């Protein structure tokens, strides 16, 4: 099960995730992110607040990567806020640490864009 919110803050899409992001739950997130991205042409950065994310696998990562590609085209960056060690491990396994920044707060991410 997953709960999430997606909002636009300046030039960033901030997605707060809560629960599990897997094959079953990631389509809703994908739709919400895609819609927010299309409706807000000034939004180019992606900030994922994952402090309450309890699980992620390649399906969840696929959605994030897909949106990151679109963000890249607009010249945007990718951030993960408060990824705990377990989540960080899975993110690093996929090489996310090479393309994303890990920060401690949304504010910090917004400062760095």
């Amino acid at each position, binding site marked *: 099960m997953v*709960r999430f919110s997606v909002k636009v*803050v300046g030039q960033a899409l901030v997605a707060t995730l809560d629960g*599990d992001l897997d094959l079953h739950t990631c389509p809703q997130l994908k739709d919400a992110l895609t819609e927010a991205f299309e409706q807000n042409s000034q939004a180019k950065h992606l900030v994922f607040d994952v402090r309450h994310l*309890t699980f992620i696998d390649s399906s969840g990562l696929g959605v994030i990567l897909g949106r990151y590609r679109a963000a890249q085209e607009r010249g945007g960056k990718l951030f993960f806020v408060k990824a705990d060690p377990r989540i960080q491990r899975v993110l690093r396994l996929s090489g996310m640490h090479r393309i994303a920044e890990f920060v401690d707060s949304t504010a910090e991410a917004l400062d760095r864009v």
Partner: protein
Amino acid sequence: MARHETNSVAIRELIRLAQAGDMNARTKLVEDNLPLVASVVRRFLNRGYDYDDLFQAGALGLLKAILGFDLSFDVQFSTYAVPMIIGEIKRWMREDTPLHISRSLRELAARATAAQDELSQSRGRKPTVQELAEYLEVSVEELVSAMEALSPVRSLSEHIGEDDDEARLENIIPAPANEEGLALRRALKSLEPAERAIIILRYFAEKSQAEVAELLGVSQAQVSRLEKRIVAELRHHL
């Protein structure tokens, strides 16, 4: 608290406006008195109930107090509000549903993470689930279930402390590290109290639109409309 007493005339006027349907007045009253709710909630903390649930109930009590306060009586608003807040909290505790259980599971998960750190340090290796469960005084099954539970709704009071209103804004918005941050803070100060409350609740306390709507006693559609307009205004400022 002293601030409210010296401004009691101002408060009564706000209440009058709020009861007449002025949304700005209503949200300012709510915002100003959230520390009061937090202080009441503290009395109910060691009973195993989730802080956020208690706070939400208390905030509802506050709203009821604002709308129901009889201006013809010569009492301080806080004198009337506190029993209303307590009443609403107690009502919630009586009606508490099993959904409460999943929240304590998530708190167990948080305790488990902390416990894992502690035990790792003392043993020089990560603990097994059996060792963790024993340490936390729960069953292994509960512990494993806890790692899968969703988190409770986060608390507004994590961000809004019991300081004065002016200081509160400084607490919420991180110290501006640059021109943009300063501009943002200035822009926020230029907003109406109701507008600022919405921005603070949505972007800094990270409440959902539905939660903000409930807290301020308006519809979600209204929050959505207002938020769009305010963000557009802010962008214009910045």
